[in-house]
């Protein structure tokens, strides 16, 4: 390839977002917040988990089964250069370099609840842009009903992909209306940092009303299709993980209850709290599922 990436991350992420939210709050006493720092309408009020918590405790099986494995082993991952193959039922298919993927998109902060299917949760200040922005740019053809995503397959840099019984690469999917929803973002960073490798650098999906495993990391392929695409956890255990995987306290995982969750960061005595329908985003997304039985479409 002749093209060389000369963009720096600081050019991608607006300067205002480099300010930590807490610094913003601390400064708010001194001066009235400028419009640029106003809280995004999609962000939640809760206090985010620390950078340390978000980046040292998560699942990314490409680097191992343990929650500490991604932080320990993701360092070797090459994220530059990076390109995303966009194809299927789109007007402008092709291999898009990362800078090209980001072109024309507004990166903003989205503070979202994150609920893992394992019944723990965090609050994460993501940086990213709406997936709909990218899909509109590449032109979704009529008849397309689903979006399929694929994670990088590179066993030499992702030790979890060496051996084992996992059907690599990791694949995920959304219905087109879910993908076009303004809550659905492609995240490029968190706090004032570009996306840490262990959290799915350089580009990952975030769908805050669904269990975390839907929010596929380190995306290299996006395909528009008219068929429901296969998804990794559904392939592995179809009775435990459905295609929709909406956060739903009334539909238990066969092996554990989803009625409550343990917020990470509470220490030894943090306890549990009730899990909210659609992870608290019901006002925005419940209508997407009108008429569907969510105990069947889990």
């Amino acid at each position: 390839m002749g093209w060389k990436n000369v963009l720096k991350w600081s050019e991608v992420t607006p300067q205002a977002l480099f300010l930590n939210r807490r610094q913003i709050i601390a400064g708010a006493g001194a001066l009235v917040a400028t419009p640029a720092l106003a809280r995004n309408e999609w962000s939640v009020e809760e206090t985010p988990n620390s950078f340390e918590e978000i980046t040292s405790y998560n699942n990314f099986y490409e680097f191992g089964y343990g929650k500490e494995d991604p932080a320990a082993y993701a360092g070797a991952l090459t994220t530059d250069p990076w390109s995303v193959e966009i194809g299927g039922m789109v007007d402008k298919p092709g291999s898009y370099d990362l800078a090209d993927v980001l072109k024309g998109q507004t990166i903003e902060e989205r503070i979202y609840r994150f609920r893992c299917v394992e019944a723990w949760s965090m609050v994460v200040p993501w940086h990213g842009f709406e997936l709909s922005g990218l899909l509109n740019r590449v032109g979704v053809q009529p008849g397309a009903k689903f979006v399929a995503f694929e994670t990088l397959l590179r066993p030499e840099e992702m030790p979890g992909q060496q051996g084992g019984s996992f059907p690599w690469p990791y694949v995920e999917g959304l219905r087109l209306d879910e993908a076009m929803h303004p809550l659905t973002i492609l995240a490029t960073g968190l706090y004032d940092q570009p996306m840490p490798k262990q959290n799915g650098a350089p580009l990952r999906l975030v769908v805050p009303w669904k269990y975390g495993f839907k929010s596929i990391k380190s995306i290299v392929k996006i395909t528009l299709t008219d068929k429901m695409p296969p998804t990794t956890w559904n392939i592995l255990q179809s009775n435990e993980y459905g295609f929709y995987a909406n956060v739903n306290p009334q539909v238990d995982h066969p092996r554990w209850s989803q009625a409550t969750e343990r917020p990470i960061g509470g220490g030894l005595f943090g306890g549990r709290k009730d899990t909210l329908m659609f992870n608290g985003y019901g006002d925005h997304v419940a209508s997407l599922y009108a008429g569907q039985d969510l105990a069947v479409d889990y």
Partner: protein
Amino acid sequence: MDRVNRALRRLPVWAVYLMGAVPAVLLLTGALTGGLGVDPVKGLEKELGEWGLRFLIASLAVTPLMRAGLRLIRFRRALGLLGFWYVLAHFTVWITLDMGLIWSQIAGDLVKRPYIIVGFAALLMLIPLALTSSDYALRRLGGQAWRNLHRLAYPAILAGAVHFVMIGKVWTADSLIYLGLVLALLALRLVPRRRPAPLRA
């Protein structure tokens, strides 16, 4: 081997209890000082359960090792009791710190979730063994009845290992190693005892 056995005879049983308490102390200080990472509850819960399994597997290894000439029988009760205490602590952490004493959900899990049912069954089976671990109980029950009762250790430890395998989203290597060890130690009990070699003239 004789030298090892002689050294073991000099090792007091209380020293085994003392060493067995070391992981608990380290875990507790770790949990209180942040040494267990971002999710100390899960860390504590998992480690306590795993130590319980380790001590129980060690107790299961005593008899096969005796056939190989290593005399550890003096320490078997300590190993079994240590295993029981760790399992009980594991269960207590689950009830309190993990489930936050939400009794409706705890009760639901205890009847609905196979891996919790299997783990709880293991704990229930260990309770009579712990209660009858004293010399007094052995005398009261009589040797044969006591031995029969304590065969419950086999299904209990097997259930504990199966519980560990069942917990994860996927089967992990370490849990399968524990299960393999338990199965191997149980299988050794099916091997007929060697009779003493007949004397030759």
